[in-house]
């Protein structure tokens, strides 16, 4: 019963807020370019569904490519750096710089570097930059966080470096690696959308472009419709990855 209530609670709150929103728009006759009512947004979603779906797919495809690229580069760099303290000392600050630099600020530069005729490459690269840090940081932290007593046991039994890496540190890092990938997937979508804002219409036309386009035309309901689809997509992706993480961890620790 309490479980059912805790599942229902957020839906009820959302419905309540939507009802207040809808009622306020009608009662105060708010102009629709300023704040369209939820019903108008729903209509905009329905009317633009094919376009929104193909845009969502464009954004999702770019985000997934970026996520995979970020996973490959971040994991291999973390692995290489984890076996050498000096390398870690050298690389970690650079990774932090990469993380704290706003993606919007470097987007115009990246677009120039990849060539203005290839904005889609710029979008992918920017999304990789955003998704890189959580995977790198999670993997590196995990690789260095093996139980110190287990490390001592590996010393005692004369394990070599490869054995220590494959049999102790990599398996120890699994939870943090999964967590990093989950966070990075959400950020890859953020990075993609932001990069789409900057790249403009030249690239694959994703949800970021739909939002920009609608905003230029003052079609606020369409903006909100694109935003709604974006949120739904990101939420679904997060839920899927959360589920995958649970299943893998259950197998990892046997319960």
């Amino acid at each position, binding site marked *: 019963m309490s479980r059912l209530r805790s599942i229902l609670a957020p839906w009820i709150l959302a419905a309540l807020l939507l009802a207040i929103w809808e009622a306020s728009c009608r009662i105060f006759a708010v102009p629709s370019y300023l704040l369209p009512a939820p019903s108008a947004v729903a209509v905009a979603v329905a009317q633009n569904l094919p376009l929104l779906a193909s845009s969502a797919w464009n954004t999702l495809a770019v985000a997934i490519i970026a996520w995979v690229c970020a996973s490959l580069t971040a994991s291999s760099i973390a692995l290489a750096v984890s076996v050498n303290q000096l390398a870690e000392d050298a690389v970690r600050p650079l990774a932090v710089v990469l993380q704290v630099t706003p993606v919007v600020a470097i987007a115009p530069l990246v677009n120039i570097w990849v060539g203005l005729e290839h904005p889609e490459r710029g979008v992918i690269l920017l999304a990789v930059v955003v998704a890189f840090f959580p995977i790198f940081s999670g993997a590196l932290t995990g690789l260095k966080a093996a139980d110190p007593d*287990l490390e*001592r046991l590996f010393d*005692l039994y004369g394990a070599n470096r490869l054995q220590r890496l494959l049999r102790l540190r990599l398996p120890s890092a699994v939870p943090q690696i999964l967590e990093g990938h989950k966070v990075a997937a959400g950020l890859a979508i953020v990075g993609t959308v932001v990069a789409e804002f900057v790249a403009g219409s030249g690239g694959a036309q994703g949800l970021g472009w739909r939002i920009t386009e609608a905003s230029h035309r003052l079609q606020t309901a369409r903006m909100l419709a694109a935003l709604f689809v974006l949120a739904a997509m990101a939420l679904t992706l997060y839920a899927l990855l959360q589920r995958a993480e649970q299943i893998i961890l259950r197998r990892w620790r046997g319960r």
Partner: protein
Amino acid sequence: MSPIAELSAVEVDYPRGRALGPFDLTLSPGEIVALVGPSGCGKSTALRLLAGLEQPTRGTVRRASGRGETSVVFQAPTLMPWASAIDNVALPLELAGEAKAAARHKAAAALARVKLDGALAAKPAQLSGGMAMRVSLARALVTNPRLLLLDEPFAALDEITRRALAEDVHALWSQSRPAIVFVTHNVEEAVFMASRVVVMTRGPGRLAGETAVDAPLPRPPGFRTTAVFRNAAEATSRTLDAAMAAA
């Protein structure tokens, strides 16, 4: 009989001060020695010296240095959470290059010795605290060590489980008779387990005194109610009290 391991005038200094010594300890093959002392007296440091996991600042350590000749059981079971019981126990053999099949065969036998032949595929999270500790014991024994070092292995367990495990350790000892050094806070446990109880002073740990427990090993549970047990426990307690008062 030549000693199996020996600490001679060892001292260990840490940045915050001296942790141990000067301290001497000589271990004969097959004897069980308990190290008792207040927290921070360097018991675990002495054990790490014997294991070769740490080097003394001064003094010498002599020990059998072959792979698998020394095994350690820590206070926590220290199992790999992602690996089954049998994979955990096979680890020391596999790290030494033994073929997987042979290693697993020996691991299964070691788990049978600690009465866990029904839990080969279980992962640590599926085991009780006592069972996890027995897996840890099996892993320590699978290489047939000549020296077994137990660092407060039962400290986190309840009294009933502790007693059962103490008897299990004796049963295992009687099969291959490794020398055992056993660190504990518990005087009764020390007297029940050991042929010799070494009491250490508060840090830096030195020898405060030694009690021989004059009864054959392994000992039945009823040993806890005998006069020999009571006398040894009293003598050890007196030494420990004196060591605490002197510090």
